[in-house]
């Protein structure tokens, strides 16, 4: 429990801004995302968006339920395989392939969540890790589906709704952006729904929520399944965009990376994990050509983040703005 308690969310769920300010900031961000492919390489941006969505989905569990999953790579990776396979072998259109990935992720989340939810804190994390390792082992063994060490290569981007070709990177980017925005909006809605209000109450004071008649485990398992489904959508989108689903996606390092992204951006904030995800992917991308050891630099960034600004980038900004008023 100590792990989870020490990284409790900092800001309020609705953020520090008033409605109109938030609208303006949101509009500026969306415009920035729309013009981004003319400034940066679309392939990199698509990857960044997929991981941003992955981190946001993960944060639904860590930030809004207070449970640390160490096995989200299982959902991300399996969904990447599922979507890739559906697009390549069954010839599904990209949007259906991605939905299929989300469905697979959600179902897995439901089963794994129902098992893991019996324990809290470090035990919960360890159960999720153990199960995700089993999934990893399966991915290696089931070479006929996953391509084993080679991964599932040559996933076609296909035609959106069977009409619009996504072969062009710019078109593909806008599709990924749309998926990201829909996923993000869905997370926002979950957090700000009647269900989200109960989740918040459970995180605030679980025994009290129980004494009011809430079967808290059902709420947690459902949050886990929702988080896994959205993680699946992120994984599926990544497979279509990058045209590859590989063991990297399902490996435990991926579970660690998404924790890093979430903490770096700001756990329990809505935008933070997206910022963290984009930042980590950006760093990796930049460092890959710089000759510097990538894992070392990211390790240092993580240590500095945890030591100096524990609330993460967006969390610290929220606190700073909150203090000023």
């Amino acid at each position, binding site marked *: 429990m100590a792990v989870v308690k020490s990284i409790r969310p900092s800001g309020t769920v609705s953020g520090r801004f008033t409605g109109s300010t938030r609208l303006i900031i949101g509009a500026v961000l969306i415009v920035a995302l729309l013009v981004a492919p003319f400034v940066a390489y679309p392939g990199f941006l698509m990857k960044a968006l997929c991981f941003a969505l992955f981190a946001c989905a993960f944060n639904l569990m860590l930030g809004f339920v207070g449970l640390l999953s160490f096995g989200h790579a299982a959902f991300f990776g399996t969904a990447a395989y599922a979507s890739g396979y559906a697009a390549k072998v069954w010839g599904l259109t990209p949007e259906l392939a991605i939905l299929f990935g989300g469905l697979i992720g959600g179902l897995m989340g439901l089963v794994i969540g129902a098992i893991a939810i019996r324990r809290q804190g470090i035990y919960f994390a360890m159960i999720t890790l153990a199960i995700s390792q089993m999934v990893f082992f399966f991915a290696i063994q089931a070479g006929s589906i996953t391509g084993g060490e080679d991964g599932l290569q040559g996933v076609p981007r296909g035609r959106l709704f069977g009409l619009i070709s996504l072969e062009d990177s710019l078109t593909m980017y806008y599709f990924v952006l749309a998926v990201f925005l829909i996923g993000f909006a869905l997370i926002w809605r*979950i957090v700000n*729904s*009647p269900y989200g*209000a109960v989740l918040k109450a459970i995180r605030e*004071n679980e025994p*009290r929520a129980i*004494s*009011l*008649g*809430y079967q808290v485990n059902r709420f947690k398992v459902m949050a886990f399944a929702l988080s896994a489904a959205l993680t699946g959508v992120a994984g599926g989108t990544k497979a279509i965009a990058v045209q590859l689903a590989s063991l990297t996606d399902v490996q435990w390092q991926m579970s660690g990376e998404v924790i890093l992204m979430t903490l770096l951006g700001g756990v329990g904030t809505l935008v933070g994990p997206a910022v963290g995800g984009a930042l980590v992917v950006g760093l990796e991308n930049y460092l890959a050509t710089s000759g510097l050891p990538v894992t070392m630099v990211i390790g240092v960034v993580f240590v500095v983040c945890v030591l100096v600004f524990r609330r993460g980038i967006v969390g610290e900004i929220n606190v700073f703005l909150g203090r000023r008023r």
Partner: protein
Amino acid sequence: MSDLVLETKGLTKEFRGFVAVKDVNLKVRRGSIHALIGPNGAGKTTVFNLLTKFLQPTAGTVRFNEHDISQAKPADIARMGVVRSFQISAVFPHLTVLENVRVALQARSPKVFHFWRSIRELDHLDAKAAQLVEDVGLGPFLHTTAVELSYGRKRALEIATTLALDPELMLLDEPTQGMGHEDVGRIIELIRRIRKGRTILMVEHNMSVVSGLSDTITVLQRGQILAEGPYETVSKNPAVIEAYMGTEHG
């Protein structure tokens, strides 16, 4: 319907060989205010946790309205109408006073799992929540974050939240603990007002609260029932005087 709301038979709880509660037979009459008193460590809170299923009894049964609830889960009995408060103030600290009460009102709604709906769908509960907040004297603090309330007001908020479920049996764990004199008076007033149509079982240390409010008192000592009856009888019981009030009564 039986005269008894709650009845325990042979209720026993052991913690690794230590018997915290032993063979407790408790009968709570419908519509009464029943106080559970006893020196520190007598097992009052353990009995409370057994009744609300936060602990499972080692032996014995608990019956609520003649249903055996010995094996029920805490959330289930809350739905049946047995709602408790906690010794440490149990509010949702970073929710406003209104939101605290609304979460309880929401428990009855079939929409609790509707993650795709807007939170505005809860707005229709606001009037009821505000009324409950007003009833416990927290009207001016409707939009205050719970963590900023004084201790006494947090307890009042807790009672408002519990009342939101309209429980048939309300269990209050030391409702006036750690309160200043004025707050105690306010809580006594409040309990008097809310007793209508329900049964209240409370653990309480403050004897003026117990004597002023309760119809029946059960005295626990070392996990066992020492005496039971109205305040006048119990307070004259020599065993009780010796065990519990010995020093006060010389």
